[in-house]
């Protein structure tokens, strides 16, 4: 992909910094945006005369050396372009971020912190973030972390930024650890009950097996094996089950929520809980990923947010109202008061006038 020249890029940073400074001076909120593919995620930004801070033009790969396993790109870079470049060198973003549309950018991927099917085995977005360049709420151009795998100089601001929904700063560039594509992948399906599937997924995760993704829905447990051919074949023999054709398309549909389970006109809850939790009885349908640690709930009736949240709390977890057309319930799980205090103090330090995506994550942030 073309590498953009530096100078116009610096102009974009300067303009963005000016926009932030002007907004800070007038205390006018800014909505950070690029591809808009994850616009649905999170709460509405609070405030009047909301300005736009569009980072889409700040795109392109800054550095990529496959043998270093690191890529640095500008946050306006489209995820499809980034992944295509990696694919050419037989590498990947191992956390399999959902795109939710072709326009999805690296910035949105990091700011929302969402990971896909490979998360339980490979790690989450935050596990692969090595460094960031960002503008804080004062418009200061700052760099944290770096392009190396191990770095303990200073607090881990790069990971703090990951999943912070644009409330702490505008991400400009991100360095990510990348991994080689597995030499082979194979998808298996096994018929069983939900409780058995949860038990099996946890049991197998405790064995040295090359399971890279799991999905249980409607009486079928689907598994993906990834690795050297001999290892994948041997694991297939151990696990049993039937090899299914079109495995890649299946995992793509789970990752992008185009699988028939996901119905765009209904409310979708994301339940992140301890993997060993037995089947959750909540009204509606569920699809299980991440070895039991992630349960998607689609509810026909308007399920009570309190009921859902209480069920996840009982399972050492939390619930996010992931997609909701009508519900006015807060999207993110409430924080304990002492944790909220720390969040507020961090927000005050990074964004003293509270202009960056205010309210997108929690009221007052």
């Amino acid at each position, binding site marked *: 992909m073309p590498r953009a020249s530096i100078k116009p890029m610096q102009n974009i940073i300067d303009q963005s910094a000016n926009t932030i400074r002007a907004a800070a001076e007038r205390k006018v909120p800014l909505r950070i945006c690029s591809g808009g593919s994850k616009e649905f995620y999170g709460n509405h930004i609070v405030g009047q005369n909301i300005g736009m801070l569009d980072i889409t033009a700040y795109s392109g790969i800054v550095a990529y050396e496959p043998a270093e396993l690191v890529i640095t790109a500008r946050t306006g870079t489209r995820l499809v372009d980034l992944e295509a470049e990696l694919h050419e060198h037989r590498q990947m973003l191992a956390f399999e971020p959902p795109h939710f549309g072709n326009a999805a950018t690296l910035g949105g991927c990091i700011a929302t912190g969402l990971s896909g099917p490979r998360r*339980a085995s490979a790690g989450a977005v935050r596990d692969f973030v090595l460094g960031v360049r960002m503008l804080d709420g004062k418009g200061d151009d700052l760099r944290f972390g770096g392009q190396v795998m191990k770095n303990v100089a200073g607090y881990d601001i790069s990971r703090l930024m990951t999943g912070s929904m644009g409330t702490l700063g505008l991400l400009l560039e991100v360095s990510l650890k990348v991994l080689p594509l597995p030499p082979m992948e194979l998808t298996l399906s096994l018929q069983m009950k939900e409780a058995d599937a949860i038990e099996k997924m946890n049991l197998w995760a405790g064995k040295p097996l*090359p399971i890279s993704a799991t999905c249980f829905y409607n009486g079928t447990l689907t598994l993906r094996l990834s690795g050297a051919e001999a290892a994948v074949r041997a694991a297939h023999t151990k696990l049993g089950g039937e090899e299914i054709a079109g495995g890649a398309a299946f995992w793509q549909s789970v990752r992008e929520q185009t699988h028939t389970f996901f119905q765009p006109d209904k409310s979708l809850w994301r339940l992140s809980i301890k993997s*060993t939790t037995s089947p959750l009885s909540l009204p509606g349908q569920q699809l299980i990923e991440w070895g039991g640690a992630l349960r998607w709930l689609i509810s026909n009736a308007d399920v009570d947010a309190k009921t859902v949240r209480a069920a996840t709390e009982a399972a050492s977890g939390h619930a996010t109202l992931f997609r909701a057309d009508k519900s006015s319930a807060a999207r993110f799980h409430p924080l304990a008061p002492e944790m909220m205090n720390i969040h507020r103090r961090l927000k005050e330090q990074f964004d003293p006038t509270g202009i960056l995506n205010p309210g997108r994550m929690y009221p007052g942030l």
Partner: protein
Amino acid sequence: MHPLDLVTDLRTFLPLEAVLYESEDLKAYECDGLSAYRQMPMIVVLPRTEDEVIRILRICHTSKTPVVARGAGTGLSGGALPHATGILLSLTKLKQILEIDPVARTARVQPGVRNLAISEAAAPYGLYYAPDPSSQIACSIGGNVAENSGGVHCLKYGLTVHNILKLRVVTMAGENLEIGSASLDSPGYDLLALMTGSEGMLGIVTEIIVKLTPSAEKAQVVMAAFDDISKAGNAVANVIGAGIIPAGMEMMDKIATRAVEEYVHAGYNLEAAAILLCESDGTVEEVADEIRRIDEIMKKSGAIEIKTSRDETERLRFWAGRKAAFPAAGRISPDYYCMDGTIPRKSLAHVLSGIERLSTKYGLRCMNVFHAGDGNLHPLILYDANQPGELEKTEEFGAKILEMCIEAGGTITGEHGVGIEKINQMCLQFSSGELKIFHAVKAAFDPDGLLNPGKAVPTLRRCAEHGAMHVHQGEEKFPELPRF
């Protein structure tokens, strides 16, 4: 507050032996693994429960007494160096493994538990705790969290930050925080990452849930010798370029192999300019396949000798040399100083030849061991503290190495932390705006600055006085501060 008044207050709820203030009792705590820096604390306190930690911190908070947390004291950057008018909070008595959940693959432990003890307790279930710093027999998990410790297997299995799920933390004000959870993610900001590697500056960790990893069916190691450092560096890049993520990838230079060979007889090639150890683990089938490919790559990359471990005894013998590098340095030199810079791997040959030039310039020997997979260099500068001026020369040599790492696009510390040791180099790696953010984060957790004061993040004034600041692209790093 007068020290004796503080002792009296602490003894209202702590037994006599848990509050130390006589100098002969304090002596054992005057330094951590970085013995070049020493400072007697005012008082040492050894709580046995989280509740005691809370009460101690509340007293210190009220009396504005600095608190330095300490685990096993094996840290290499002086992070647990005591404060002259502060309390040293030793967490070694909080050493219980509270729960192992073999099905969920987690362990809930107190901070004083030794790193290796977790793996030992998990072993009956076919599980282990993956991060394995070289001090794992002695170092505590609480210290690992404070430093975000790595180890030889972290390219494949991650650092501490990748292997913990939840922390219970007590803030300086004595408030309890639950950060993270037993599920894979948590709402809000990633405070789990922020706490990990924060060097005891933000809070005191009283409980940790760690992830456990299934033990591999098999592990095998390839030992390859090269007559040239750059060839060894290229071999590392070729292995990774071929799509292999080895379980461990370590390099040693000639001084290092000679020093350890005499000591452990690992069977290293003593004529080689560099030795590479490349380990594969996984299922039997995976390992067989990977070892065959690694062997081929080593040959193509110009290895002058390749040995593959035939059994577990031989594998451990090959590793014994690498693991003995630090004690071996201690055998051939009265003192040694271990650096911890990380560089992009492509700069390896360049940085190593720079180190060689500096070694000649300062007249001090330097042996290099290197976590080659992730670019983390550990140059060990050999010196004699009894020779006047030699420590100062060593520190200058070390500082120059770190500056080289920054110039190569790397960092001053990969896994040992900044502590007190690398505090001046922080001024080179970060701008004043970035350092201000670090201070702001600290203030969000500990507004009075009582936890581990003077460590990890330098004040802007200190950076201005340090003087050796780099002017980057014509910008002065601290334009708002006067020069002295």
